[in-house]
């Protein structure tokens, strides 16, 4: 999918902010809900291919 364009600016880095390699993990995602994806359409077929062959998006791109 095309990148989302966001016109609001990112915040300025606060004074004194520091992290190893400029990155720090803070939390984790909330648990997800199991749902059925409708097995319909070209994008689902790509999903099914990845899932059945245990491939990632980037492997799929190649």
């Amino acid at each position, binding site marked *: 999918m095309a990148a989302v364009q966001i016109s609001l600016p990112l915040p300025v880095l606060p004074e004194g902010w520091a992290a190893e390699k400029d990155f720090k993990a803070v939390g984790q995602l909330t648990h997800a809900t199991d749902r059925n994806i409708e097995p*319909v*359409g070209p994008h689902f077929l790509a999903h099914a291919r990845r899932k059945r062959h245990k491939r990632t*998006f980037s492997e799929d791109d190649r």
Partner: protein
Amino acid sequence: MSEEESPAQRVAIGISFGNSYSSIAHTSGEGKAEVIANEEGDRQIPSILSYVDGEEFQGTQAKAQLVRNSKNTVAYFRDFLGQDFKSIDPTPCHQSAHPIQHDSTVAFKIKDTAEGAENTVTVSEITTRHIRRLKNSASDFMGKTVNAAVITVPTNFSDAQKEALTKAAKDAGVEVLQFIHEPVAAVLAYDARAEAEVADKIVVVADLGGIRSDVAVIASRGGMYSILATAHDYDVGGTQLDQVLMDHFAKEFIKKHKSGGDPRENDRSLAKLKLESEAVKKALSLGSSANFSVESLSNGLDFTSTINRTRYELLASKIFAAFTRLALHAVEKAQLDPLDVSEIILAGGTAHTPRIASALQSAFPESTTVLAPSTSPTALNPSELAARGAAIQASLIQEFEAEDIDQSTHPMVTVTPHLAHAVGVLCISGDPASGVFRPLVEAETPVPVRRSAVIATPREGGDVLIKICEGVREIKVTKPAPKPKPAKDEDEDDEDDEDDSEEEEEEIREKAWRVENVLAEAALKGLKKGAKVEVQVNVAADLSVQCFVREVGGKGGVRGGWSAPKPVENGSI
């Protein structure tokens, strides 16, 4: 492709098989879906079979037999398939062959042979005959024998019903490659258009048919569809609209011909009244008035009359309101707000009715696009959506082995974790209370998923903070300022609102984001003036996340990741 492989020999079409009408569709060379007209030129083929001296009629010809030969005319049978006699509602069949109990299934007693003996024909056999006719029409058109199909079914079609339909189709020489849900077929028909763009959106499909109306709320995420909620109503549909017109014209007739009797009290008159009322109803979807004309409607008396659309809309207003209620109810069941709905796709024959589309448009916010012939110049024909979607799906899978299709549609593949909340970045400020959350990945997106955004930076460039969070959509309600007393001018500065008199009363409802949970922080340093930052988020199937941020056009970047939430013990949530 080797000739002996069965997929190579498939000729597949899409079939929409409704209680009232059926359609067949194929895809042309460039993958464009097209609904096929049968020998009579119909694209909406009444799902009716009728027998006259052993000869079988289908579609419009069979429908005409409802007047003289209703006992040997079978109609409204789709929903009986695979059902117990006790669980069916035979009401729609009052003016045609009555369903009866036969062993564990439903059947009809009809004279379907030249000898004129009454035979018991099961609903499965009727369906086979109907599908055989559809298959033959498609084969004639395509110049080769159709032997496979994707068939659309309602979202609440049971496994037993699907099994019965598979068998009935097989007996007609049609291999069911896959059943797909009617509303999903409608979304696919829209998404398959050349100009369509893949987007994340909530789509409501309102499928308004003849004897039932079904609404589905669908999360469309990167071209994948998940049904969040459905609502069904068997008491509102085209039949009720026909009834409104039947009552209207019957009363007009009685007024005009005191000795003519009530055409609703005689079977043949009733059938004529119904057929013509349906035709008038369809004409009123296009024109501002329509003519009703039936020869010998009752007691040998001809009857003609006209009705204008305004009158019809008044008579049917209660029913129109019921469609809107059903759609709103489905949105509520999905725990969403009308503001979350990007699009309403109107599907099914009754969706041609202009007033139904405009009523939905006024019940939903302006940001919701209603895709119907009367509200959108680019709308597809609502009567064709299911068949088109089925044909597109058929073209996508017809070369797969049956086993491949089975595996791909298995819950092992389809059941997938969907994100509870949106994942996005904070803009303007890094403080969750004052920053503005912008989503990259919407809630209800299946994982794994990869999304990216290109984000503006402060005017001077420099060092920026990328704060990745989970956000929750909230509905912000602003009550109108209490109405100023007569001396209105003194209230604030007058922003020359022309139409403020009415608008002022309404509260303003808007979507807003609240930060639920901070996930990670990254810094990008020394950005150029006017730089843009690309943020890419990769959520894995186990909910661990990888993230990559970089200056657009710049070198390097920052990469990081974080772990999946701790698994919950079974039953502890």
